[in-house]
């Protein structure tokens, strides 16, 4: 049955990638309402689900996440070298901590919060260093990180059980 997941995973990954942009545009009025800006991270969620719910570690997630990160940099921002490193980094970290975790809803939720923080902080630091943006740390934490975690957790809670069912059924 492993071949089905091998096809579903990349398709879902790119669907999530483009949905991130489309939904950001459609709901821009509520997602980017001043002073808060909440960033959708469907790609990150799809990757984390894949790392933790794929029991036999047979998906080439690291390579696919690097490719998705490359497309993200390429198509959305035009600044290379940010997401293309951030997403594989997350996959690597998740694989490192996976053996120590007792997998259930709450632990996965905590892992997701930590990973959201890592990705947002990484992107913020990188853009700050290359002078793409000027913003201070307090503004970042309060106005970007907070709302981003809130919105993405809500999506996570809604999608957790359907996603688990998907992986259980396919395997």
């Amino acid at each position, binding site marked *: 049955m492993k071949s089905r997941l091998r096809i579903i995973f990349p398709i879902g990954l*790119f*669907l999530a990638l*483009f*949905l*991130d*942009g*489309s*939904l*950001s*545009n*459609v709901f*821009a*009025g509520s997602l*980017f*309402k*001043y*002073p808060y*800006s*909440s*960033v*959708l*991270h469907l790609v990150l969620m799809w990757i984390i689900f894949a790392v933790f719910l794929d029991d036999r570690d047979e998906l080439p997630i690291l390579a696919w996440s690097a490719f998705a990160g490359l*497309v993200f*940099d*390429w*198509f*959305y*921002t*035009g*600044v*290379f*070298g*940010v997401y*293309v*490193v951030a997403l594989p980094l997350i996959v690597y970290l998740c694989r*490192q901590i996976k053996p120590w975790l007792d997998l259930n809803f709450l632990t996965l939720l905590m892992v997701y919060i930590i990973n959201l923080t890592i990705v947002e902080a990484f*992107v*913020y630091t*990188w*853009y700050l*260093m*290359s*002078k*793409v*943006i*000027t*913003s201070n740390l307090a503004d970042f934490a309060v*106005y*970007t990180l907070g709302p*981003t975690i809130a919105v993405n957790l809500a999506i996570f809670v809604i999608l957790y059980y359907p996603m688990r069912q998907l992986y259980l059924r396919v395997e």
Partner: protein
Amino acid sequence: MQKFFSNRKLVIAIIILIISFGLMSVSVAIRNRKSTPPLVQQFGNDVAGAIDRVVALPVNGLQSATTSVSDLLNTYQENQKLKKQVDQLAQAKVNAQTATAENKQLRKELKLNQSLSDYTAVTANVLTRTPSSWMNQLVISKGATAGVKKNMPVMSQSGLIGRVVEVNQTNSKVELISNTSSSADKFAIQVTNSAGKTVNGIVTGFDKSDNYIQMGSVTSSVKIKKGDKVVTSGLGGLTPKGLYVGTVAKIKQDDYGLASEVEIKPAADLTDLTVVTVAEQ
């Protein structure tokens, strides 16, 4: 627990960081150049744009369906309000037509064929918005094949929203006017007061707390009032003259008390964009 940072892993991590930072520096440098992105990058963007169209289509369809329903609910009130405006509009339209015809004739007599206010419009759909809090960018569905060039101004139905920063063959990226990054290009604009006097200046920033466009370093003694209209001045570059930007919201002294700063309320809603127009001079 295995050793987290063995020597080999440390070296690999440092190399990856250096490559990533190098890539970023190079692409920022390329972005700030006046020419379009390299061919490889254009090709990748075109492919991604083509796939994105497939995903964006149902999502945008859903959005237009919901807006249709809410439009339907407001129809009665809106209709009554609009009926009052229609009569005045017809008159204004005839006036404008006569003025345009006269203007054309006079220009012909002066042998002034091209003026700053002439432009042709390319209408494009908005494909996606960058899902990031740092880059206020849109991807629109027209590119170099439709005549879009870098640095052209982009408008929504009601006013100026930004400028083209990257052109591919079939799509292009638009940086919104609310982008405060230091590398953003600034528009040349002018304020016209009720007496017909103008004050020239450039957009110097965006005040995120009120969603106002800022025009700083204004030293002119011409009196500007709240509500005065602001349009692009057409000076310096690709922006045509007379694109509507917004109205003056307030005027205040700058931090040093030497010049004043005009805050402008943008006419366009930057968070509700489905169709935009690229103006080419």
